[in-house]
């Protein structure tokens, strides 16, 4: 992966790299029945939940908000189920197993994000809202204008997020059990549609709860097995980490020439120190801003607060969600370290360059290995949990998009709130089917595409477009329709535009250069001294020179073609069977590298610019938040100050009193 690693979330690494893994799945054929049995069991359970739920879903309040009768504790689990995607489970555990400290640091922002949700978003939104982001923004602003823009934003954010999940899910299922990508995508789509269309928010909530429980239980069991040999002592396991030969070798590889003067123990200790993966501090701060402010602007998370009876339960649900999500991320530290210790970074990379197979392969190891029944049962269970994760997350996203389409656009804007209850439920179901089909089509169309930037884009748009609008309409009297329109448009578009010009995208020239280096090798290079930056702007945009670290001199490296030829000559002379096997395996790897490099060259032959017409990134960061978030806030303020909106100001007292007291908040449906 190296310098070009997309690192927005674990998802990024997870999605971008899984594509390279070919083969017929991590589960051997003789154990496939076990995998299907576990998958079947979990699918049957969710179908039973949906069948039960379908009998309870009649009104719009039941379809969109589960009758507002979900308890705070249940909703806490459901939020965790909605939020913990396969990217966190597989991606972050994988990053920790390969890069140690930096992988763990990554997960912190995902928890801290809920402080924003808890303190300033959840309760006011519950008190004044109904089903959607649009309802919150329309409270004291022009309803048609704000509902339209909120719906567009909701659908945009959800489709970005959803595409990443669909593509990631398809790749994951293929990697784990060898089912075709298209079949997996259709399977995920059809299952998720069944939950949403028949069971609405009731079924979606319970599927998310079940999935969160399975995920936490699976992780707890694995961590107990990993940690027990070290007597559940933190320094105990860390001590083994720093003395582990495989980890030391991996660190030496990551550090390159600067590792030459380090003792093995120093190399091991380096695994527990920052800087092996995350190299650009400004980019990290930009990412942190998008995480901490974006989560509170994600429509599918906001929607969950309408499922509880009142603001107190909304508060309780965030606190529970923080306990579960935080606890889970602490567990990933041990999953990652456990995989590094027991499986070894080199073996994890061999299966998947982004490390996504770390947790599944660790599960197989803990159960007894690749040839044991328990090992394969563990692997199957983890694979099924990952699958359930994708389905549950996608269901929440589809419900959020469908509510924006049916409730905001159809009922609110087109019908001017005059639709009958029956019409509203039908509209919600039809919208769900439309979004579901779109999700499947996009999932299949995006096969093999670089979608790593999409999750980042979803968080960035939520933080730059949605959050400033929600926050300022709740807490700033002068905020009005015009501010919200301007802020959401400029915030969202700037976030999207910056990502489209960022290093997240594929650039043909870079691909061709890398592929050529793989095939033909690289010539010897002289040392290059460090270069100073020409200013802060240069760190963001490619208009002037940014800071560059000094590069040590490098020796010429032979290309894969040359290495393969040498190796083949050697194979002809080898007689020892063990050595011969190893040489043949190495030759196989080289052949694969050559094939991939040749495919890349063919794919990008003659191209110099990418799909947005750039030869190289114009925006130097991978995360746009540091620019687009302040811009979003600024535009809401500017729009509100430039144009007056009497209604928005007249309604301020009502909004402010109601968000703090819960007077006239939407109540629960009695059952």
């Amino acid at each position, binding site marked *: 992966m190296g310098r070009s690693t997309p690192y927005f979330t674990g998802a990024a690494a997870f999605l971008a790299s899984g594509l390279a893994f070919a083969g017929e799945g991590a589960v051997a054929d003789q154990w496939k029945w076990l995998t299907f049995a576990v998958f079947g069991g979990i699918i049957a359970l969710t179908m039973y939940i949906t069948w039960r739920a379908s009998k309870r879903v009649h009104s719009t309040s039941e379809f969109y908000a589960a009758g507002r009768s979900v308890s705070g504790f249940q909703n806490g689990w459901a939020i965790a189920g909605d939020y913990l995607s396969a990217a966190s489970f597989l991606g972050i555990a994988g990053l920790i197993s390969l890069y140690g400290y930096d992988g763990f640091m990554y997960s*912190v922002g995902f928890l801290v994000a809920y402080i924003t949700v808890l303190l300033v978003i959840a309760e006011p939104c519950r008190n004044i809202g109904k089903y959607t982001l649009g309802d919150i923004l329309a409270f004291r602003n022009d309803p048609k204008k704000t509902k339209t823009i909120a719906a567009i934003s909701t659908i945009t954010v959800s489709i970005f997020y959803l595409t990443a999940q669909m593509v990631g899910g398809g790749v994951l299922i293929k990697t784990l059990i060898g089912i075709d990508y298209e079949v997996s995508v259709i399977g995920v789509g059809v299952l998720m549609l069944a939950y949403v269309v028949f069971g609405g928010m009731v079924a979606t909530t319970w599927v998310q709860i079940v999935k969160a429980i399975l995920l936490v239980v699976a992780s707890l069991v694995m961590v107990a097995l990993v940690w027990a040999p070290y007597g559940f002592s933190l320094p105990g396991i860390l001590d083994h980490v720093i003395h582990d030969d495989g980890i030391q070798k991996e660190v030496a590889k990551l550090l390159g020439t600067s590792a030459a003067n380090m003792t093995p123990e120093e190399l091991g200790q380096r695994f*527990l120190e*920052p800087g092996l993966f995350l190299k650009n501090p400004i980019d990290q701060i930009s990412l942190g801003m998008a995480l901490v402010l974006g989560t509170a602007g994600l429509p599918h998370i906001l929607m969950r607060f309408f499922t509880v009876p009142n603001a107190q339960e909304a508060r309780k649900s965030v606190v529970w969600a923080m306990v579960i999500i935080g606890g889970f991320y602490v567990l990933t530290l041990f999953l990652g370290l456990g995989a590094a210790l027991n499986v070894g970074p080199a073996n994890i990379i061999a299966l998947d360059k982004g490390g996504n197979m770390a947790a599944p392969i660790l599960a197989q190891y803990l159960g007894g290995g690749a040839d044991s029944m328990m090992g394969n049962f563990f692997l199957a269970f983890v694979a099924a949990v990952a699958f359930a994760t994708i389905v549950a997350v996608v269901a929440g996203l589809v419900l959020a998009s469908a509510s924006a389409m049916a409730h905001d656009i159809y009922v609110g804007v087109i019908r001017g709130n005059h639709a009958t209850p029956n019409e509203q439920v039908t509209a919600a179901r039809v919208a769900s089917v439309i979004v579901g089909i779109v999700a499947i089509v996009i999932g299949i169309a995006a096969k093999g595409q670089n979608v790593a930037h999409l999750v980042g884009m979803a968080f960035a748009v939520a933080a730059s477009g949605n959050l400033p609008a929600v926050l300022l309409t709740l807490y700033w009297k002068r905020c009005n329709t015009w501010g919200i329109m301007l802020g959401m448009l400029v915030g969202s578009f700037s976030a999207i535009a910056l990502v489209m010009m960022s290093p997240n995208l594929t650039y043909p020239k870079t691909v061709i250069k890398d592929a050529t280096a793989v095939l033909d090798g690289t010539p010897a290079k002289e040392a290059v001294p460090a270069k100073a930056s020409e200013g802060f702007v240069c760190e963001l945009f490619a208009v002037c020179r940014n800071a560059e670290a000094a590069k040590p001199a490098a020796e010429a490296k032979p290309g894969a073609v040359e290495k393969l030829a040498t190796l083949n000559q050697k194979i002809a002379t080898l007689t020892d069977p063990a050595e011969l096997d190893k040489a043949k395996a190495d030759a196989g790897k080289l052949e694969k590298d050559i094939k991939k490099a040749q495919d890349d060259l063919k794919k990008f032959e003659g191209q110099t610019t990418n799909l947005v017409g750039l030869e190289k990134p114009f925006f130097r960061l991978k995360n746009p938040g540091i620019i687009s978030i302040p811009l979003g806030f600024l535009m809401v303020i500017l729009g509100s100050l430039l144009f007056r909106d009497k209604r928005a100001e007249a309604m301020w007292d009502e909004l402010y009193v109601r968000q703090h007291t819960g*007077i006239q908040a939407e109540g629960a449906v009695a059952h």
Partner: protein
Amino acid sequence: MASPQPDWAAIDRDPRFQTLHKKKTAFLWGLMVFSIVYYFLLPVGAAYFQDLFKVKIWGPLNVGLLFALSEFIVAWVVAAIYAKRANREFDAMAAEIARDAHKIGGSK
């Protein structure tokens, strides 16, 4: 809404609501600013204070790892502090205002 609307402006002016508003604003934004500053100390420390993050405290356990773990603890503590105060104080104040909503300033 079948029942008559409360007089929102009068409730907003009511001293009890003003007290709730003032207490909540100072408390919430105080916690919010503290949490955000504490969070960003992590990437800033990891990037610019690596020597400090590398200092070993307990066996191989270093400052950086402890600091990352402390982020979890701090997030949980902030949540607990807020939930406790809101449950004990803010909810009762809000309930009282809600109960008297129609009496304050008379209904429109």
